[in-house]
Structure formats: structure tokens, C-alpha cells
């Protein structure tokens, strides 16, 4: 019995079993089944290893930042936060993820919201957010999985619907939805763009940008540059003795560079892991939905819309990051208990998409305004739930994405009424 509980509460194994069932259902050959199952399990291990690297670098950053500036600052990176949560609530999180898939199919089947959410990495982060909030109220595992999975499934089917009017405009068809949990923000950006509808034809795509800015199109480069700046600023402010103590035998001015690149390497590894362990599960998910839910619409990751306005992505990234820095200034001036430091990759994907949405309705003005507002939301919303995660042992990172926080804050308030 102990064996079975231990076996099933290892998330890697659990996801391996899901992949196995999916592969068998797709009538794959024996070798394909074995390969797919093993790759899923190995991929999850790779994901955890990348998360551990990122977490280590972030802890060093937090020490430097806190000593240097005397405030608690966290880099809002959901990957690192998820890796931390997975260490403690692995079983609940993994089961919530799987139930979330199934409930997404159920909601798509019985309601007019026919969106199937395929950005499974994002579903995993959301499953973590929901599990942490629900578990912080001392609810039992089974109840937490059922509640979390149902909410996750509902959001997966419902939230893409908010963006669909803009998706029709951007892509010129109704075949694809967006599947990325900032959907409340993206639709807001589209509506903000409408304020500039007079200038809709002055698109970002007419702007001639300096060539070097396309450097940021490779999001790992964006992460590396921003982390280098953050680490060096914090290390110089913290001073030699503090930094040297953390650095050990490394020179104190070399240490920040190594840490910044370690963080970026961790992210690259983590992404590789996500790619490995979700490939088979997503494939199974696709084949199930195509079989059982006719006329369903796939909700896909944000790069799907990047080809329609590549310059708007860069405009949105810069505008959202600027908003994040304004957020830092406001949090410092008004003495917030915590300062949320914007993470480059989040601003790139989330801000960039908000830029595409704003541009579709209000030209470059809409892109700038929409993604700036999104940047502010990414900065300020996490401050509300941070104490909840802190009480669950999550230190030094948090979940910035808009939908996680909007839905999470509702859920937190609701559960407070009952407990």
C-alpha cells in the first residue's frame, strides 16, 4: 500500500501514466508507448531540475536585493513559483491539472464555449495557483482537487471566449482561440485600443524599428539581459562584503554574472522539460477532443498571433516592461510590503500579445496603451495574493499572470467567507 501511494504521489509517474493511457488509446505501437511514457517521466525530472536552478539563483538575488535596498523584492516568474509549489503539493497539483483537462472537455461539450485549452504548461501553473489557495484554507486533498480542477476546466473553456472578437479581427478567421492565462488582460487591451479607433490604420507594422531590438525576439536573450542588470544593480547596492559572502570563492563582481546566466540556463532547461513531458499528453488531449467534441476550437499559446503583427510584439514588450518599472517605483515610494520586479519573459509574451490586441483595434497608440495597462496589472495584482503564497512556504517568487490573480483573488475572498 505504501508503495502504491508513494508511486502515485510522484507527479512524474502520475503524468507518465496519463501519457501511457493516451498512447494506448491512440493505438500506438509498443515502442512508441514505452518511449512516450518514459519521455514524459524524464521530461518532468528535467523540468524540476531547471526549476531548482532558477530557484537557487533567485534566492541569491533576493538576498542581495533585500540587503541592498532594505525591501522585499521578488522576480515574478511563474516557472520558479511552480517548481517550488510542486515540491510540496505535487499530488494535488498534478491531479488538479489532469482533472482540469477533463473538465475543460466537459464544459466545451455542454456549453457554447467550445474552446479546448492546449497551452498545457500554463494549465500547470494555474493548477498550482488554485491548489495553493485552496490548500491554504486547510481543505482536504480530494476536495481541493475537485474544486481546483472544476475551476481550471471552466476557465480553460470560458476565458478564451473573451478574446474571440479580437482574435477574429487579428487572424481573420474563427478557427483558433488564444490560450494563455492573461485573457482578461488581452481582451481589456483590445477594448483600450478601441479608444484610439480613429488611428486604427496607423499600425505598429509601419514603424521602422532599429535592428538591434529584434534581439529581444529570442526571449532567453531578453531574460539574460534583464537578469544581468538586476543582479549587478543589486550586488553593487548590497556592497562587496555581502556579495562576497554569498559568492564564496568566486570574485564578487563575477558572481552576479554567473547567477544571471544560471537563472537563464535554468529557464532553458525547464522549458525543455515542459516540452518533453507535455508533448504526449497534449497529443492525447488533441486526439480526444477531435474525436468527442466536434466543432471545438483549439486555444493556443500566444506566439500563434505573433505572425500577424511582429512589430506590435516588441512594442508591447517594451511598453509592458516600462509599466513594470513604473510599478516598482510606485511600490517603493508608497512603501509596499513587497516589490514585484518584472520578469523579462513574462513581459515579452504577455505584453507582446497585449500589443497585438491593442494594435488590432487602435494602431500603435492602442498597442502602447493596452500593453502598458497590462504591465501595470502584471505588477500590482500579485501583491494582493503574495501573503497567501508566503503562508504556504513559497518564498521569493510569485505568479504574475492576470487571470491567475483575478480568479485567485475571487476564490480567496470566497473561501474566506466559509472559513
Amino acid at each position, binding site marked *: 500500500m505504501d508503495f502504491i501511494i508513494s508511486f502515485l504521489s510522484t507527479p512524474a509517474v502520475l503524468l507518465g501514466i496519463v501519457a501511457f493511457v493516451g498512447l494506448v488509446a491512440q493505438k500506438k505501437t509498443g515502442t512508441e508507448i514505452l518511449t512516450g511514457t518514459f519521455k514524459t517521466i524524464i521530461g518532468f525530472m528535467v523540468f524540476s531540475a531547471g526549476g531548482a536552478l532558477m530557484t537557487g539563483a533567485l534566492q541569491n538575488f533576493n538576498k542581495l536585493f533585500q540587503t541592498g535596498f532594505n525591501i522585499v523584492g521578488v522576480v515574478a516568474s511563474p516557472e520558479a513559483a511552480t517548481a517550488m509549489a510542486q515540491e510540496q503539493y505535487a499530488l494535488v497539483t498534478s491531479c488538479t491539472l489532469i482533472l482540469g483537462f477533463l473538465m475543460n472537455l466537459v464544459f466545451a461539450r455542454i456549453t457554447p464555449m467550445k474552446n479546448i485549452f*492546449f*497551452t498545457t*504548461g*500554463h494549465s500547470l501553473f494555474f493548477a498550482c495557483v488554485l491548489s495553493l489557495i485552496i490548500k491554504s484554507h486547510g481543505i482536504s486533498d480530494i476536495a481541493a482537487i475537485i474544486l481546483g480542477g472544476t475551476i481550471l476546466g471552466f476557465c480553460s473553456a470560458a476565458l478564451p471566449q473573451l478574446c474571440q472578437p479580437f482574435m477574429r479581427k487579428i*487572424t481573420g*478567421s474563427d*478557427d*483558433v482561440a488564444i*490560450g*494563455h492565462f492573461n485573457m482578461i488582460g488581452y481582451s481589456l487591451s483590445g477594448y483600450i485600443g478601441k479608444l484610439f479607433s480613429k488611428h486604427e490604420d496607423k499600425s505598429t507594422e509601419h514603424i521602422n524599428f532599429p535592428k538591434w531590438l*529584434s534581439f529581444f*525576439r*529570442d*526571449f*532567453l536573450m531578453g531574460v539574460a539581459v534583464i537578469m544581468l542588470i538586476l543582479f549587478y544593480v543589486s550586488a553593487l547596492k548590497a556592497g562587496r562584503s555581502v556579495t562576497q559572502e554569498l559568492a564564496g570563492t568566486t570574485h564578487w563582481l563575477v558572481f552576479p554574472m554567473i547567477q544571471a546566466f544560471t537563472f537563464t540556463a535554468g529557464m*532553458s532547461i525547464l*522549458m*525543455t522539460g*515542459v*516540452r518533453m513531458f*507535455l*508533448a504526449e499528453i*497534449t*497529443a492525447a488531449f*488533441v486526439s480526444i477532443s477531435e474525436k468527442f467534441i466536434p466543432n471545438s476550437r*483549439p486555444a*493556443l*499559446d*500566444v*506566439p*500563434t498571433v*505573433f*505572425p500577424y503583427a*511582429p512589430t506590435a510584439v516588441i512594442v508591447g514588450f517594451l511598453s509592458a516592461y516600462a509599466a513594470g518599472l513604473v510599478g516598482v517605483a510606485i511600490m517603493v515610494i508608497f512603501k509596499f510590503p513587497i516589490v514585484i520586479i518584472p520578469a523579462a519573459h513574462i513581459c515579452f*509574451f504577455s505584453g507582446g500579445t497585449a500589443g497585438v490586441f491593442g494594435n488590432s483595434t487602435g494602431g500603435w497608440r492602442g498597442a502602447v496603451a493596452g500593453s502598458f495597462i497590462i504591465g501595470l496589472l502584471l505588477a500590482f495584482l500579485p501583491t494582493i495574493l503574495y501573503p497567501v503564497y508566503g503562508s504556504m512556504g513559497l518564498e521569493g517568487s510569485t505568479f504574475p499572470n492576470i487571470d491567475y490573480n483575478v480568479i485567485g483573488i475571487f476564490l480567496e475572498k470566497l473561501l474566506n467567507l466559509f472559513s
Partner: protein
Amino acid sequence: MHKALVACRAGVGSSLMLKIKTEQVIKENGFPIQVEHSSLDAVPGFDGDLLITLADVAKELETQGLKQTIIGINNIVDKIEIESKLSQFLNR
């Protein structure tokens, strides 16, 4: 037998769907193509002869003088688009 790499920037969300759709097209048509999937970081070490990616990424890759044929897909769930572009590649 041709070897193709399906890739996008992060290699997680959109290219995974593109890979699934590409595999469906290959299977339905019996195309002689094997598919691998990764992020753009795997492009320099890739030894096959075809890269399949999103249209905006394809534009960027074309400036890099790679030895592979590059196919850029606009609508990643449009099997007809994928099929016609793969046929074009095979009938060069």
C-alpha cells in the same frame, strides 16, 4: 526519407500544436518525412533538411543562410496550408 524539425521561440505552445498537425498531415498523405520538435535553440545542430515554423519566425530564419528549406505556416491548425506547403517541398 526527409527529416524535419518543427520549432518556435519557446518550443512549448504553438509549435507543439504545429507538430501534432504536421504529423496528422504526414500520416494521412503518407509523406516520407520524419518530424522532430524543439525550440529555435536546436536549429544550429539540426542535421535534417527541413524546418517548419511560424511565418514570422520563418522570415527571420531566412536571413540566416541556413542549409535547410524553411517552411513558414500562417495558420497552424490549417491542415490544407500545411499539406500544400509540404507537397511543394517534396515536389521540388
